[in-house]
């Protein structure tokens, strides 16, 4: 904390504030984190990010986040799977190599249903996982958040809140005091 305060005049001198990732606070419980998010947002900050060991119910509402668009990717993936299954069975059986087996039609929907179902599920699952990774911009092996000296606590038992320096209202001094008052321990101004 002392070290932090020493750094602050340094920040005031530099007019280029983008070299900081932001201010990170460190809270004891999900409830403290949610309270901090609401207060910080009421104070006018908007570029917030929380880091938690498990998903927290009510976090999206507190952050003002919308729903994930992942469902649309999965729907598209599933439809692609269904179309590929029909195309595969129809083209190989009824177009490319016509072979009558046991007097059955070359292509019919009834025996095609199992593979139609399986490929729908397969493509939809890939869409869900790849869509999730894409929306989360993963793999991403470097992120400024990792410069926070206690970032590893966020995968264990601490609940972290970052206010990013790109916030139009970003004021490190004010934020450090605010987060501290809200119960944060080890509040830090993190370099980018």
């Amino acid at each position, binding site marked *: 904390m002392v070290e932090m305060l020493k750094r602050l005049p340094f920040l005031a001198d530099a007019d280029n504030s983008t070299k900081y990732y932001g201010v990170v606070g460190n809270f004891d419980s*999900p409830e403290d984190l949610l309270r901090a998010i609401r207060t910080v947002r009421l104070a006018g900050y908007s570029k917030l*990010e*929380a*880091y*938690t*060991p*498990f*998903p*927290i119910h009510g*976090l*999206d509402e507190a*952050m003002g*986040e919308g729903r*994930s668009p*992942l*469902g649309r990717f*999965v729907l598209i993936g599933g439809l692609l799977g269904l179309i590929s299954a029909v195309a*595969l*069975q129809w083209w*190989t*059986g009824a177009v*490319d*190599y016509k*072979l009558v*087996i*046991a007097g*059955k039609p070359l292509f*019919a929907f009834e*025996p*095609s249903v*199992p*593979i139609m*179902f*399986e*490929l729908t*599920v*397969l493509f*939809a*699952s*890939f869409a*869900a*996982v790849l*869509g*999730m*990774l894409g*929306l*989360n911009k*993963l*793999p*991403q*092996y470097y*992120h400024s*958040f990792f410069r926070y000296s206690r*970032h*590893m*606590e*966020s*995968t*264990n*038992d601490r609940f972290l809140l970052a206010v990013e320096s790109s916030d139009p209202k970003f004021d490190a001094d004010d934020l450090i005091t605010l987060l501290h008052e809200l119960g944060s321990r080890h509040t830090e101004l993190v370099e980018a």
Partner: protein
Amino acid sequence: MADLALDPRFELNPPLVEGGATYADITEKVSSITERKPPKQWYIAMAVTTPLALMLFASLTYLVARGIGVWGNNIPVGWAWDITSFVWWIGIGHAGTLISAILFLLRQRWRTAINRAAEAMTLFAVACAAVYPLFHTGRPWRAAYWLFPLPNEFLHLWQNFRSPLMWDVFAVSTYGTVSLLFWYTGLIPDLATLRDRAVNPIRQKIFALMCFGWRGSGRQWKHYELAYLILAGLSTPLVLSVHSIVSFDFATSILPGWHTTIFPPYFVAGAIFSGFAMVVTLMTLARWVYNLEEIVTVKHLENMCKVMLATGMIVGFAYATEFFIAWYSTNQFERFAFMNRAFGPYWWAYWTMISCNVIVPQFFWFKKCRTTVPIMFILSILINIGMWFERFVIIVTSLHRDFLPSSWGYFRPTIIDMSTFTGTIGLFLTLFLLFLRFLPAVAMAEVKGVLHQQINQQKGASH
């Protein structure tokens, strides 16, 4: 906490971690397993399972060198231990998906203690099952061209998509792939925990790579939670479809004893029955190897015993229905097939199946049997045996006496049949032990989420 445990509303959802555990306790308990040297029991178990796994590779090498004649199946019994074991392994996998997907959708929170290990079991069981279709081709390096629609120069034609065997290929490979995606998605946040705890920089880099640089930010969790929910929603009909399609291999034929419409639900119930038996077997082993008693509690095991009791009775009912329908059909071949099953040359297999699958689960009516670990371990092994015999009975007894008595035979397994099957058990257990040693065996992030709910409920109760 004690009051909560007595509350009847929480009977199915016992406290996941006993005592006043914190989030950090869960991280420590689960992660430390992968960070320190394994206990003595782990080495003992590995010393038993690794030679068995190597025996599988030796048997398969011999099979490829000599041809599939080294197995005992031959006309009229063209399918024997290979497909018996294939169906058995696929069925075992089903409990893992049931626990991870269906119980997730039903909000059975007790599942979080066992779902990671059960999903791993699914993957290893599917891997063991895949050995059979791959190697029964005799030329496994060409199997991809026979099993999958790949353009190729060997055959100059395509697979027959009107055949249930082709549906089976798609069902099982989709099942294996989706199970892997589901399992790995669940692992990502826990791998990040291991990364953040790592002291050794190489270990840290390995886990950083494996977790894709996961940060656990609110936005990441938002997409992640939805992806997990969608995967659970997709896996639920998938798991029901897989064993239904496996049963089509038999049900769509015209062979008496196979040609029955009861097969899909009967196979799915049997799969869940055998799978839960295997989860109980593995969990009692994991508790012994890694002292996981605090996380995998007797209450979890008891819940699984109840599932075995319910599904075991569905299976028993299916056996009775099959017999009734054979008699009711007035078809002499159908009647013969079933009388031959129970009183023919393979009577011993049939009655092993009935004893293990119908009588053994009845012990689970008694609370003592559901809560005493050694008893349920033995009962679960017996159910595993019984379910293997179920598939053996369905397959071999239906085949060995063809329509003409001149085409009757008696299947006897060879030593390679036995070493291949024992080898798959060795491979399965070895993979499971490696999983326990190197990856977080319990879904930490999920258990923490449940613990948070517990803490909130406690607060709500005390206010």
